[in-house]
């Protein structure tokens, strides 16, 4: 393998890891505050659709991004209302959001554009063009979100409170800080990040929305989150690793490795899921989620 191929693989790994990274950080914010989010996939999908529809209607990629973020935050607030205000089951709510997103984007897309759920192709200013090293501005925004997340969660008072609410909400409540307010803030931040992830897919990477275009990336992001043990810098590493796997799956297709023979693409595709299961089983280190994640907070208890 010469340098050229390595650069190509690195480049496409970065491209493929960006949506994972944004969704993974979204999950990180939400779960660090105690709200489990398996609806990352759904929020991304809604943002991808709304982003493409917005960019097409308004003629600007940035406007599309804002529409995508708004849609994703709206869905996030539904999840927040169910899991924070109504103290409902957060897993159930996440499953519902994934189904709703898959159905709604297809139906609305079909009704608006009549192209089998696709949005019309985006061109010119309707897409994010490359600004640096052949990557669009969104790539750098998402990459920047890593140090910002690390700094805000780890080094500021707001971050400390937010993490505390994911570990011991009663203590935060006793200190006179609103558990509900903090959790809603986290859910909104997660919505914004999922909006970035979705818009990147339809307005940055591709030129328009395709039905079910997230194709399980929200779940890989979830896997990466567990892999990163709910921390920002490791999240970057995990997402890049999964992006690298994805990129090399394309390159390794039909390539035969010495001693192993031909590596099936599916074996590489299965890696993120398999690695997560193995990690969760505690064979290589232990992944411990925030203590109060998934538990609705009830004041009186």
């Amino acid at each position: 393998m010469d340098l050229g191929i390595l650069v190509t693989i690195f480049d496409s790994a970065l491209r493929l890891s960006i949506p994972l990274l944004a969704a993974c950080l979204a999950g990180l914010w939400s779960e660090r505050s105690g709200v489990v989010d398996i609806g990352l996939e759904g929020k991304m999908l809604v943002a991808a659709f709304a982003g493409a529809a917005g960019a097409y209607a308004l003629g600007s990629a940035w406007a599309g991004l804002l529409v995508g973020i708004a849609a994703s935050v709206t869905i996030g607030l539904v999840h927040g209302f169910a899991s924070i205000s109504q103290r409902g089951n957060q897993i159930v709510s996440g499953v519902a959001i994934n189904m709703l997103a898959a159905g709604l984007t297809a139906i609305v897309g079909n009704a608006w554009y009549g192209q089998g759920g696709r949005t019309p192709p985006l061109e010119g200013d309707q897409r994010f063009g490359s600004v640096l090293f052949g990557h669009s501005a969104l790539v750098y925004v998402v990459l920047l979100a890593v140090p910002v997340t690390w700094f805000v969660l780890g080094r500021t008072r707001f971050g400390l409170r937010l993490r505390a609410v994911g570990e011991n909400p009663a203590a935060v409540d006793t200190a006179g800080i609103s558990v509900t307010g903090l959790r809603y803030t986290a859910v909104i931040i997660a919505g914004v990040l999922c909006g970035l992830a979705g818009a990147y897919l339809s307005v940055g990477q591709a030129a328009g929305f395709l039905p079910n275009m997230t194709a399980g990336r929200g779940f890989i992001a979830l896997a990466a989150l567990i892999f990163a043990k709910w921390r920002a810098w490791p999240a970057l590493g995990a997402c890049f690793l999964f992006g690298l796997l994805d990129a090399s799956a394309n390159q390794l297709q039909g390539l035969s490795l010495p001693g192993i023979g031909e590596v099936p693409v599916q074996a590489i595709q299965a890696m993120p899921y398999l690695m997560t299961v193995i990690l969760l089983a505690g064979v290589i280190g232990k992944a411990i989620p925030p203590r109060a994640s998934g538990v609705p907070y009830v004041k009186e208890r």
Partner: protein
Amino acid sequence: MSAPLDLPRWADTVLVPAISVVAAFLVAGLVVLAIGENPLTATRWLLQGSLGTGEGLGFTLFYMTDFIFVGLAVAVAYHAGLFNIGGEGQATLAGLGIALVLNNLTFLPGFLLIPLGILGAAAFGALWAAIPGYLQAKRGSHIVITTIMFNWLASVLLVYLLVNVLREPQSMNPETRAFPEQSYIPFMHDVFAAFGVEIPTSQLNLTLVLALASAYFVWLLIYRSRLGYAIRVVGSNPSAAVYAGISPARIIIIAMVLSGALAGGLAVNELMGYQHRLLLEFTSGYGFVGIAVALMGRAHPVGIILASLLFGILYQGGAELAFEQPAITRDMVVVIGGIIILFAGALDGLFRRLVAHLFARQKLARA
């Protein structure tokens, strides 16, 4: 706010789910309105297509069979306090089990091959659920995450096997060769014809009987057996279970095994009853519908049968509706499923509090 909600039993088991379903349909109606179609004509086409003709009814019952299995699968795990969202993956593996049994034992007569195929489905489905169950029970890995991962693993595995290993050599399609004919589960119209009764042709087959029997079996198990009692104790209070001498780890694994085996019924109906070969994505997301069915049916077999009928109507009626009003694609059914999960599952408390509030006011008014 969090005072215990005193609701009469009928209100809790019938009224609250009914209200959330009605609310879900109202929201779905708004979606139909929003895309510029008339929700009332849509409802008419939906009902006409699913119940209005004998053929439509047959298809409705075919889908209902699928949903009973996946609904029961979610419910059994739910009683043990587990959230099995791996129905898709378990049914996928069950399909693999069916194909391996049927296409390798082609020499057997039907009365042996059919039960063996069903057992193969149950065994493979159970295995795919047992691993997450074991990991939850013994290693503490969260069942929701592992079952999600196992769904994806199952789908990747099936793609690999169908493309590289099990595909018929001459065929371009990623599917196995057809199962031996004696292994087909008889179509209902053929069964009736054998007795001289003519009913419209549809995909409906005898698996429906197996589904109803499974529902009865689950009822016996959960509410009338020692094991079912243990499952419910573990589900409601694992530490109390330990004091009662029940091993939660053992019960968790058993519940998941049963759950996975039940999810395998989806593959039996789809593959042995209708497709007669193993193909990609035959589960069509029905595993997730099982969650809606179980939540709506309050994890009780009778409720699950009723909820499955409703979803059968939606899926069959939705197909007809998409034909009559092309703007309303079949994705509408997925939307309704999602809203029902949201309302009957995550926002359940909202409707319960509403109903409790009304009852309390009525009581005050009478006093």
